[in-house]
Every structure is written in structure tokens, then in C-alpha cells.
């Protein structure tokens, strides 16, 4: 047997991840499916780490542990929790399975043409990427290559991805938002009446989240600011900030959070993040450079030419963090309150 190309963990993880994926889809109860999907994302994070993709692993950790499972739970809360067992349409399922297998076989037929796993000389690794690896330190003084490529070399890409998150937030609002005064949406009958406030009820949970939330927010700010030197950046820090507020929503009450963060504030701040990003680009034009070419900002920022790019990256990451944070909060609140923005999970 040939020697495994990457070390031992990976193969075990890859087998386990397929098991988890299949398990998540065979669960009858939707809550179970959501929980198993959370475990699937834990394993995915470990796989990214084992392959050396620390930034991706950080994003997956923040997203999988804090946000995506909670979204699914919030949706199930407002609807029914079960996939009702019906008479299975075996014929249709077999047909779909045949289509899927045919697609897979078609993809596998290209297997001999792919480069071997972990080959440093493969086309992906030997064309564009070496330029980034060699020049990052000289161009921007940022040791974390991923951050530089994300916010500087491929700044347009990230700007538009941030805009996509913003647009998704708007889309969810326009799909689900109803005016609670003229609301025709009635509660699903399975939900019991919201319990009256009882301080002994969840005292431990409340106190624990009261301790954890400030640490989360400080840690998230550290992640955004320290993304130049270690894995992290706007996306990860934004998701952690969003998750901290989501934790407040869950452990206290939705009303408790909505006293501070009204709907208007959340939407305005979501837009503000994209605006910060775009404004940095426009400022570059006014200073006489190209759009998002941070070198042009040199006269107003401390340090030499490369430090202008260093601080430009920091400004842009702040914008990304603001957008991601508030869009996560907005999406959670609107999913959990069934579009009424007043009460919910």
C-alpha cells in the first residue's frame, strides 16, 4: 500500500465526516438532524486544520459552533419539529439516487487527470500562488498571507462577498418581515405560552452568559485587530461578535436585546460596514490612486508605503466585521421571531 500523502488524522477524519453527513440526512427528527449537522461542522473544522488552512478552520469554527445550527433551531422552533413519516416514494428516491450516482461516476471518470493530493508542483500551487507567498512581507508587512490576499490583492472580491452577505440579509427581510400590527401570522399551536419571568428559572444560564459575553466580544475585537499576525480577521471576528449577541438573545430574552438593538439600528449598521469598505476605496481614488489601492493613502497614514497597505487592510477588516456581525444578528432575530421582530426563541 502506498504511503498516505498527508498524515494519519486526515483519512480518519474524512471517513468520519462522510458518516456524519449521511447520519444527519437519515434522521427523522429535524432537531436531531440540526444537532448532527453541528457535529459535522466540528469535524470539518478539524479537517481544515489538518490540511493547514487555519483561517478557514477558524471561520468554520465560529460559524458552525455559534451560528448555523442556531439558525436551523430557530426555524424549527417557529414551525414543526418533525419530518412526518409518510409512505416513502421508493421509485422516485431510487431515481434520484441513480441521478446522483451517475453524476458521481461522471466526476470520478476525471480522477486520473487530477494532480495527486499534496503535490507541490500541481498547476494550482505553481502558477499564481507563489507570487503571493513571496511578496506579501515586502508589499504589506503582514505575515498572515491569507489576510493580505483577502483584503489587499483580491480586495474587489471581498468587497463583493461582503455585499452578498448584506444582500442576503435584505432578501431575508423582504421574504419574512411582517408588520406585527397587521400580522396575520398566528403562532403554531404547539408552542406553549411564553413563560412568565421567573428569576430562578434559568439563573445559572443567565449568569454564565453574563460572564462569557464580555470575554467573547473582547476576544472578537482581538481577532479582528490581530488578524495580521495570526489566523483571524473581519469575517471570523464578526461572526463571533454576532454569536455573542445571539447568546444574549437566547439566554435572556429577545425583548431584552431589542431594547438596545432596534431593527432600524441593525439594518443601518449592516449597511455601514459595506459603506466603510467602499469608502476606503473611494478615499484611495481621491488621494490619487486606483480604487482600493491602499498605497495612495500613504500621506495620511503613519509609516512607509507598505504600512499604508497594512493600515488599509485593518480599516477594511473593520468594515467586514461590522457587516457580518449585524447581518448575523438580523438574520437570527428575524428567523427566531417569525418575521415579527418582537418575540421569539
Amino acid at each position, binding site marked *: 500500500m502506498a504511503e498516505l500523502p498527508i498524515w494519519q488524522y486526515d483519512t480518519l477524519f474524512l471517513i468520519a465526516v462522510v458518516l456524519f453527513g449521511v447520519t444527519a440526512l437519515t434522521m427523522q427528527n429535524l432537531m436531531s438532524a440540526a444537532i448532527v449537522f453541528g457535529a459535522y461542522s466540528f469535524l470539518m473544522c478539524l479537517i481544515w486544520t489538518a490540511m493547514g488552512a487555519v483561517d478557514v478552520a477558524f471561520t468554520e469554527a465560529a460559524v458552525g459552533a455559534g451560528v448555523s445550527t442556531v439558525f436551523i433551531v430557530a426555524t424549527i422552533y417557529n414551525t414543526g419539529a418533525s419530518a412526518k413519516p409518510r409512505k416513502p416514494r421508493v421509485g422516485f428516491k431510487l431515481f434520484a439516487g441513480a441521478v446522483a450516482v451517475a453524476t458521481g461516476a461522471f466526476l470520478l471518470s476525471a480522477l486520473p487527470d487530477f494532480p495527486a493530493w499534496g503535490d507541490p508542483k500541481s498547476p494550482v500551487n505553481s502558477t499564481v500562488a507563489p507570487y503571493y507567498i513571496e511578496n506579501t512581507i515586502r508589499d504589506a508587512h503582514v505575515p498572515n498571507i491569507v489576510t493580505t490576499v483577502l483584503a489587499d490583492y483580491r480586495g474587489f472580491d471581498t468587497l463583493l462577498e461582503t455585499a452578498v452577505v448584506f444582500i442576503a440579509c435584505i432578501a431575508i427581510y423582504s421574504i419574512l418581515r411582517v408588520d406585527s400590527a397587521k400580522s396575520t401570522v398566528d403562532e403554531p399551536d404547539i408552542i406553549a405560552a411564553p413563560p412568565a419571568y421567573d428569576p430562578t428559572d*434559568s439563573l*445559572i*444560564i443567565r449568569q*454564565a*452568559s453574563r*460572564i*462569557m459575553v464580555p*470575554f467573547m466580544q473582547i476576544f472578537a475585537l482581538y481577532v479582528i485587530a490581530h488578524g495580521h499576525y495570526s489566523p483571524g480577521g473581519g469575517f471570523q471576528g464578526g461572526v463571533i461578535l454576532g454569536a455573542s449577541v445571539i447568546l444574549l438573545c437566547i439566554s435572556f430574552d429577545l425583548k431584552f436585546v431589542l431594547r438596545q438593538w432596534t431593527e432600524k439600528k441593525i439594518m443601518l449598521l449592516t449597511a455601514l460596514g459595506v459603506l466603510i469598505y467602499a469608502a476606503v476605496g473611494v478615499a484611495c481614488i481621491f488621494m490619487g490612486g486606483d480604487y482600493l489601492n491602499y498605497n495612495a493613502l500613504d500621506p495620511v497614514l503613519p509609516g512607509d508605503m507598505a504600512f499604508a497597505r497594512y493600515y488599509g487592510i485593518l480599516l477594511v477588516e473593520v468594515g467586514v466585521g461590522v457587516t457580518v456581525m449585524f447581518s448575523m444578528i438580523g438574520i437570527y432575530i428575524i428567523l427566531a421571531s417569525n418575521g415579527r421582530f418582537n418575540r421569539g426563541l
Partner: protein
Amino acid sequence: MEYIAYILIVVGLVFFLGTSIGLLRFPDFYTRMHAAGKGDTLSTVLILAGCIFAVASQGQMSWLLGLKILLIINFVFIGSPTATHAMMDVGERAGAKPWKKKGGYK
């Protein structure tokens, strides 16, 4: 230094072995919760402490790194029992039935 790391990690693995066997073999939700809640937290804390010594024996330790691992231990110590409490709450509210010995004590 290195041997302390070995001992701590091996003891942690033994506790985790207990946790996973307990999760597999115990008959009802509450007893499984007992195995998971206690063994999981303790084994995690032991292995993380072992990691501190392992890194220190390789000479890569800085104060920031040690502080961060201690913070992880701290947060696991706060978060994991809270999660255990929340899940126990779920079990009681949702009406999980405690296991009784067949024909056993009243």
C-alpha cells in the same frame, strides 16, 4: 517536565475512555449525562494542562500562549457545566423517563 505531560495526557485519555464507555453503556439519559458531564470536563482540562507542559518541554512557551491555554481551561470550566445544566433541564422538562431496575425498589 516531559513526563508530567505524558502522565496528564494519559490520565485524561483514561477519563475520556470512561466517558465514552459510559455514554455507550448506561441505560438512560440521566446516567449518560452523569458520565458525559463529569468525565468530559475533567479529561479536557487534564489534557489541556498536559498540552501546556508538552509545549513548555519543547521550549516554545511564551506567556501569552500559556495565558490563552489557561483561558481555554477557564472557559471550558464555565461553559461545559452550564451546558450540562441546560441539557439536564431539557431532559426534565421534556419528560425523559429515569431508568428503573426491573421489579426493583420503589
